[in-house]
């Protein structure tokens, strides 16, 4: 019994402390270093923040260069995906044609929606978008846990945390991390994303909640709310961050929102230099 305990402790110690002939560090020492780095970063000391910002800028640039080979064959993945989705796409296109045929009937509905949005715009304290920054997407790594992108503009261009990010005036997400030359954008479908929105002719208020899936869902709706498909969802601007009336996507019958901008297909985005009332996230 004592022999087996000795064996265990020898193997355990050896695994933690032993170094190979060419290895400079033991696992134990590196675990300690990693823990120190982790807590310094989590508790956000200014020196660490500055160092991290510098490291981020350097690593994002290297990532952009290192990803060049994968950019040479962008069609492969998309080709495969479109092949699998061909039937679905066909059905969807048929539905779109039907929808366009019925466009005349929708006209009244759209004008109602427009009237309501005008009301929203009149009542909210809207800050005009006088200044925007066009940014290129540097890194778009598809993580299973975090849905974010890195853009090539940072605090040097006046970007701060919380600023809304759009593409073709459709909302994409918001800035959650800024470095001197780059920033991280949290996408609308990330689990950490929460946006106050408004939609339909009654100007129903809700929170658009990301779930880590492709389509974020609508939460905090009025009781017994019945979802209607294909209604445009807009940012309500109640958080003082996003412009009221910024279009986001269309509702589906199960309470999700199909985004106007596919978060996996971003190459250029616009950062609206609106100063949020306070830095968020």
């Amino acid at each position, binding site marked *: 019994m004592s022999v087996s305990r000795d064996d265990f402790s020898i193997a355990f110690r050896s695994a933690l402390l032993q170094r190979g002939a060419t290895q400079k560090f033991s*696992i134990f020492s*590196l675990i300690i270093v990693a823990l120190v*780095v*982790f807590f310094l970063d989590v508790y956000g000391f200014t020196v660490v923040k500055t160092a991290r910002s510098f490291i981020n800028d350097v690593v994002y640039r290297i990532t952009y260069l*290192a990803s060049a080979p994968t950019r040479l064959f962008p069609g492969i993945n998309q080709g495969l995906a479109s092949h699998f989705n061909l039937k679905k796409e066909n059905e969807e296109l048929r539905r779109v044609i039907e929808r366009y045929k019925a466009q005349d009937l929708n006209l009244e509905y759209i004008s109602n929606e427009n009237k309501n949005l005008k009301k929203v715009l009149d009542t909210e304290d809207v800050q005009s978008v006088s200044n925007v920054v066009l940014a290129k997407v540097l890194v778009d790594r598809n*993580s*299973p846990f*975090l849905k974010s992108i890195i853009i090539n503009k940072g605090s040097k261009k006046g970007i701060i945390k919380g600023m809304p990010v759009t593409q073709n005036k459709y909302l994409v997400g918001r800035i959650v991390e800024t470095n001197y030359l780059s920033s991280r954008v949290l996408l609308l479908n990330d689990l*950490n994303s929460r946006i106050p929105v408004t939609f339909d002719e009654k100007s129903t208020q809700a929170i658009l909640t990301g779930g880590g899936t492709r389509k974020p869902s609508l939460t905090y709706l009025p009781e017994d709310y019945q979802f209607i498909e294909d209604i445009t969802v807009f940012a309500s601007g109640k958080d003082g961050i996003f412009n009221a009336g910024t279009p986001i996507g269309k509702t589906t019958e199960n309470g999700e929102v199909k985004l106007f901008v596919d978060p996996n297909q971003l190459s250029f985005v616009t950062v609206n230099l609106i100063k949020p009332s306070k830095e968020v996230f």
Partner: protein
Amino acid sequence: MARVNLINKLFASGPLILLYYLSISELDTNLEKLFEVFSLNLQIIIIYFWIIKRPSLMGPGHIFLAGLINDVVMGFPLGISSLSYLVVCFVGNYVRNKSVNTTIASDWFTFLIALLFANLLFFSLLNNFSEVAISYTKIGYNTFFTLFLFPVFWLLFNVYQMSFIGAQDA
């Protein structure tokens, strides 16, 4: 002779280069466009396999650095991936110290332990010390697919080892 040596060194550095490349590039093993729930942590498989088979090719210093780079690219708090990779490295080292000969089945079973320890540490640190929220369902799928596909990569890496590095285990 020098040229052969260089080629051998290059082949021997293959796993490490792959580890660094996966950490720093946009290349991901998350094929959610095709199959929404599919995601895989290939870095952990690479580390575990090579620590068991050829620890001299996968130094802990490199593993630590690859983890740091991964954190920067993914937007996690610095050091969290390094910790999780080092735990995998530690379990691998321990298993190697305790076993004389390994098979695909024994490696698969011990990999489960390494993966559970690594993920437990990763997500409990993230949950308790960071504001980043993470879906537990995604974690489950990620762990499942990483474990499920381990034997496939074990065979692939074994073929690589036999063909380019040498058949002898550490």
